[in-house]
């Protein structure tokens, strides 16, 4: 298996860090493989190239391999395998400075409270617009099948806003979000960094909620493979997972964050200014134009089992697809479908030589923990996982 080339597609976002680090810092080479990293411009292109074999692997939106596997969105079904996740966090909801001023005006109390409560102010703005006969506000996410879509919908629904009737919901590619907001085509969006902080820096947007405010455990990007590719080359798949897990460990360390920002600033990767990337990765972002930086750790690459592919998280995604009319996966089939695609068994086997503690279970009930907590580790002992409380206070039990 010496020097096997794996073609891996990615989009220019901070969480492409894991494959980039694996390539640049030699973690891939240490596993005897060469990553041929291909920067893509849209999720549709990543999906098509991965499904039809022009890519071996991809840094991909967590719901998208499930959608490909089920043949949703106009594509024939192609069996997929997700052997690991590529981290948590990084998403946020940004609104135009004009809408932000209206939110402050409409409900100063909600805007002064915990950040996720900003949707209550939006509810009032929408009611005022409707009473005045103004057209509905427009919001964008990055793709129909994205955690961004479900996070934005969850935030809207938390205040009793119907995402399908009370606002226009559209899709804009990540790198075009800021420009679309600045030109007034949309009033707000949910996207990964650096595209929220960039809007703040340009003075055109303000961040009103982060993924951590909505559901900190929400799955973000994953490693997507065709099942046929993974099944044919189990050793290569395991080597790829190990290289990426070690890269995630490196990227997670606070002392490596500045070096990571400089690496990602390369035009071949994310290509925004290192200042913005350092701010995002350093955990002290500025959330509104002119505001002071505040402590906000939003990029978790390895801690809290951020690379572990929980089957329950995939089941949650399938539940969201069904809730929002994208798919009809009956509740009784969700776990089976989720377990066909998300493969914690492959993850555990791949990282065994690294001596890492991994969760014993494939499923976790979410919604009860507001703080990091311990769960049982495979082979005894425990591992720490992150907070998992929903903005809405709901509980997601994958077995129900």
């Amino acid at each position, binding site marked *: 298996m010496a020097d096997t080339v794996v073609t891996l597609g990615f989009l220019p976002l901070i969480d492409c860090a894991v494959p980039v680090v694996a390539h640049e810092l030699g973690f891939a080479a240490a596993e005897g493989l060469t990553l041929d990293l291909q920067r893509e411009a*849209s999720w549709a292109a990543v999906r*098509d190239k991965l499904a039809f074999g022009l890519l071996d692997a991809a840094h991909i939106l967590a719901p998208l391999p499930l959608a490909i596997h089920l043949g949703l969105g106009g594509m024939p079904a192609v069996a997929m395998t997700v052997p690991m996740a590529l981290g948590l966090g990084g998403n946020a909801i940004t609104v135009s400075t004009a809408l932000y001023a209206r939110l402050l005006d409409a409900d100063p109390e909600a805007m002064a409270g915990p950040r996720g409560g900003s949707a209550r102010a939006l509810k009032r703005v929408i009611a005022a617009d409707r009473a005045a006969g103004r057209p509905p506000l427009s919001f964008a996410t990055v793709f129909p099948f994205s955690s961004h879509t479900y996070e934005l919908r969850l935030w809207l629904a938390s205040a009793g806003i119907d995402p399908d009737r009370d606002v226009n919901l559209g899709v804009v590619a990540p790198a075009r979000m800021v420009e679309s907001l600045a030109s007034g085509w949309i009033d707000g969006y949910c996207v990964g960094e650096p595209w929220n902080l960039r809007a703040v820096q340009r003075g055109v947007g303000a961040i009103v909620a982060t993924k951590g405010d909505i559901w900190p455990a929400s799955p973000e990007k994953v490693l997507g493979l065709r099942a046929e590719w993974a099944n044919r080359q189990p050793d290569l798949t395991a080597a790829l997972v190990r290289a990426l897990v070690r890269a995630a460990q490196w990227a997670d360390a606070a002392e490596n964050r500045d070096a990571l920002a400089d690496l990602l600033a390369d035009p071949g990767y994310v290509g925004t200014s290192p200042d913005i990337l350092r701010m995002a990765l350093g955990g002290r972002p500025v959330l509104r134009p002119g505001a002071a930086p505040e402590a906000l750790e939003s990029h978790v690459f390895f801690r809290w089992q951020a690379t572990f592919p929980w089957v329950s998280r995939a089941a949650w995604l399938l539940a969201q697809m069904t809730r929002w009319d994208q798919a009809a996966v009956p509740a009784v089939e969700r776990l089976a479908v989720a377990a066909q695609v998300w493969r914690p068994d492959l993850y555990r086997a791949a990282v065994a030589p690294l001596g890492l503690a991994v969760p014993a279970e494939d499923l976790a009930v979410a919604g009860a923990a507001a703080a990091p907590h311990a769960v049982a580790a495979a082979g005894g002992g425990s591992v720490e996982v992150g907070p998992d409380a929903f903005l809405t206070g709901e509980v997601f039990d994958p077995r129900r």
Partner: protein
Amino acid sequence: MGESDLSILVIDGDPDRAAVVERGLVEAGYVRVSIIGPSVNMLARVQALAPDVIIIDLENPDRDTLEQMFQVSRAVQRPIAMFVDRSDSHMIHAAIEAGVSAYVVDGLKEARIKPIVETAISRFHAFDRLRRERDDAQAKLADRKLVERAKGLLMKNRGLAEEDAYALLRKTAMKQNRKLSDIAQSVITAFEMEF
């Protein structure tokens, strides 16, 4: 509605390629072909044009926006779907490899769409070939300039006559089994480092 009456929209970030595809479709007898370039309000323009078939380059970031039309059929009168001939994955593969993606109005018969997608694929290939030829020509020109520069440096700094300078470059290239332009580049680099 005859075949040629189908309304086709070509969306491409590269206006030259869009023109090549448009010409191909017009030559094939389709009379209602429009082009739009990159734009922020693509969705509104697509809805206004209401095409039967959309040909868009696979790499176009606007595709993610277009795909939303699968999801929000409530908002569009003419739902579209990606062109997928389930019996012919070879065709999808050829399209993706050529960098073509196509979306069609729901319910349109595959037999009517296939020739359009085939034309687009062949035009994308033709365009790639033209661009490769142009790039090759430019590379050759650049190579020639390198050789000229290296020759000039050898003449000026080593007092060689022009034909001797050229002969030296050629001989070195042959001996090292490298391209003449590579040797010229090495010579230029060496002189740049010296001075």
